[in-house]
């Protein structure tokens, strides 16, 4: 994993000192709220519906165990004993006090972390495939690229005041996109061209929110050396032509749509041609230096075959659902579900964070990933360690076996915490998860992604859920609109809007009806999404609205 150099550490510490001074000046009145607000937002501190909220950056969703322990320390010391993993792989705290935030940032800096660029109209935390460096379907580990982009975009003087926030996602596995690259302002896939060279497929103009758009190809194959100059050119075009008169039309997806992809591409290519690449591009030596931090761990080659048949049923179910193949013989990728049906999706207690950190040290080279699906991953676990790991997960209450099943619901904080929300989303997720709590039933249903947003801003990614749920409110009553057929992967699709909204109770019944309809109609090997695509919207809509 990447380690800060002297410059990184000095910079982060200087930002802590700067913010400490700003908070002191705010508390004694030398700074007004109008002056202070942009400063706190630059350090990830929001004022939400009930309290402050601090959003901590987890670059490309990768943590060392001591960093996760520090996040646990923050939860215990300055908050209410838990944190929340977001759909951008970050960690949020719901109840910090203003005077404590500089201490929190200082503690974070001590383990090479911060909360910079987790808010505001800048390039946000780059997100990444959580199986990076471990998946067999990957062309190349995308994390060195993600780190390069992090360094380039951090406090970039040209791109600190963009028309609107800007989100980049990267993957090295274009055939199995686990980073949702087509729903980002820029998505980058590592690809091979006909000559067998690796380079980048640059996708632009995707995004969710009130105007969901699937990104389009900007460059089908970009040589690796051109990455930063090409991103720089793209950002310059956006910065110059992106609308600043209307925040709802300021994202790059609107610029691409209004300009047209052909003309937008021409603008980028012209800017790229006019750039002096040597001013921006990074040399081989620096690329190698960054890549060295992500070198594969020292795998063992003497791991004995693991026999599942003699293991308890609960363990076998968990392996079947939460454990996926690793590119290295004898190893496995372990998904740790943060989807206890009784909890808010993505919430994890300080005690559980410490348990995961200990497990990472014991079984996964001290490394933990957060996922945009609000779970955690131990990426390099010996197969003959799986049982010992599961035993500890059971003790920590982290053994839910529901990854990619109907209980693995993505859900924003909704009206329970968010100042922008129009309806609650957490209780809806809990109600659905409880209705389908039976593991055998979840397994029988198979892969099914439900995504819930508590407002039109779509932090819960509802547009790309197999079942998407949008919470709204009218005359004091919450109701929920449904979309079906969304897809967040390499075959990304915006879901089809159904009709009138449901109350929470009606919604859960409606979802049960479409699940039953799918189970009745599906053909061999079909997922919910496959059956939906084959049969089409009208039949599913009829099932959704059928009267009991």
């Amino acid at each position, binding site marked *: 994993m990447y380690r800060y150099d002297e410059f990184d550490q000095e910079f982060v510490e200087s930002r802590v000192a700067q913010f400490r001074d700003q908070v002191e000046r705010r508390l004694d009145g030398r700074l007004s709220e109008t002056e202070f607000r942009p400063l706190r937002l630059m350090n990830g501190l929001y004022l939400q519906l*009930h*309290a402050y909220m601090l959003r901590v950056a987890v670059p490309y969703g990768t943590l060392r165990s001591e960093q996760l322990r520090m996040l646990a320390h923050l939860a215990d010391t300055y908050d*209410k004993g838990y944190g929340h993993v977001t759909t951008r792989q970050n960690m949020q705290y719901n109840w910090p006090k203003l005077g404590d935030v500089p201490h929190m940032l200082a503690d974070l800096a001590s383990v090479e972390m911060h909360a910079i660029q987790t808010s505001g109209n800048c390039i946000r935390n780059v997100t990444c495939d959580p199986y990076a460096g471990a998946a067999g379907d990957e062309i190349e580990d995308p994390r060195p690229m993600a780190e390069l982009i992090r360094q380039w975009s951090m406090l970039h003087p040209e791109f600190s005041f963009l028309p609107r926030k800007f989100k980049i996602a990267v993957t090295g596995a274009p055939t199995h996109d686990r980073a949702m690259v087509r729903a980002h302002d820029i998505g980058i896939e590592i690809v091979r061209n006909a000559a067998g060279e690796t380079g980048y497929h640059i996708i632009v103009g995707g995004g969710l929110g009130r105007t969901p758009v699937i990104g389009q190809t900007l460059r089908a194959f970009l040589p690796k050396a051109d990455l930063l100059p090409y991103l720089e050119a793209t950002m310059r075009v956006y910065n110059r032509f992106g609308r600043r008169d209307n925040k709802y039309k300021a994202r790059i997806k609107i610029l691409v749509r209004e300009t047209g992809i052909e003309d937008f591409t021409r603008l980028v290519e012209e800017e790229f041609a006019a750039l002096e690449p040597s001013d921006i591009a990074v040399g081989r030596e620096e690329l190698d230096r960054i890549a060295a931090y992500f070198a594969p761990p020292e795998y063992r080659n003497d791991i004995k075959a693991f026999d599942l048949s003699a293991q308890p049923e609960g363990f076998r179910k968990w392996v079947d659902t939460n454990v996926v193949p690793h590119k290295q013989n004898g190893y496995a990728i372990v998904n740790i579900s943060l989807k206890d049906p009784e909890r808010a999706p993505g919430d994890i207690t300080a005690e559980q964070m410490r348990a995961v950190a200990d497990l990472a040290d014991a079984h996964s080279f001290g490394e933990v990933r957060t996922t945009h699906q609000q779970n955690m991953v131990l990426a390099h676990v010996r197969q003959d360690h799986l049982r010992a790991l599961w035993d500890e997960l059971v003790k920590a209450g982290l053994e839910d076996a529901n990854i990619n099943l109907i209980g693995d619901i993505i859900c924003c904080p909704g*009206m*329970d915490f968010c100042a922008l929300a129009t309806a609650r989303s957490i209780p809806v997720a*809990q109600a659905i998860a409880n209705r389908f709590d039976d593991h055998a039933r979840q397994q029988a249903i198979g892969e099914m992604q439900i995504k819930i947003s508590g407002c039109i801003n779509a932090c819960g990614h509802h547009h790309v859920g197999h079942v998407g749920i949008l919470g709204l409110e009218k005359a004091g009553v919450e109701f929920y609109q449904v979309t079906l057929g969304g897809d967040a992967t390499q075959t990304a699709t915006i879901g089809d809007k159904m009709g009138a909204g449901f109350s929470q109770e009606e919604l859960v019944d409606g979802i049960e009806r479409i699940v039953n309809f799918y189970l009745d109609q599906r053909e061999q090997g079909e997922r919910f999404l496959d059956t939906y695509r084959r049969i089409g919207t009208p039949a599913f809509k009829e099932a959704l609205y059928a009267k009991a």
Partner: protein
Amino acid sequence: MSTLKHKGKGPQAMTANELRSGLNVWMTADYEWSRDYTDALLTEDETVIAKMDAVAKAAERFNEVVGAYFIDTVEGKPTRYRERFRTHGPTYDTAELI
């Protein structure tokens, strides 16, 4: 002072967030701040409303609260759903399970 989509109809209450904790507060009949909405002063008296406005602005200047604004109420409760929600806090909080 922000009204956050409130229409100035019916009895008015004044709300804000404490600067230090960020927690929600409402102005009381003593022109102090309470974290409990049931302590809130609700009034249609224009003279009182003007005083509430002045006190809130002063409290912002003196860095006690941030983002003060009036809310509409009906039958003793905030009219807007969002504001009703602010009076009781989240319906779910993992902290309560720990």
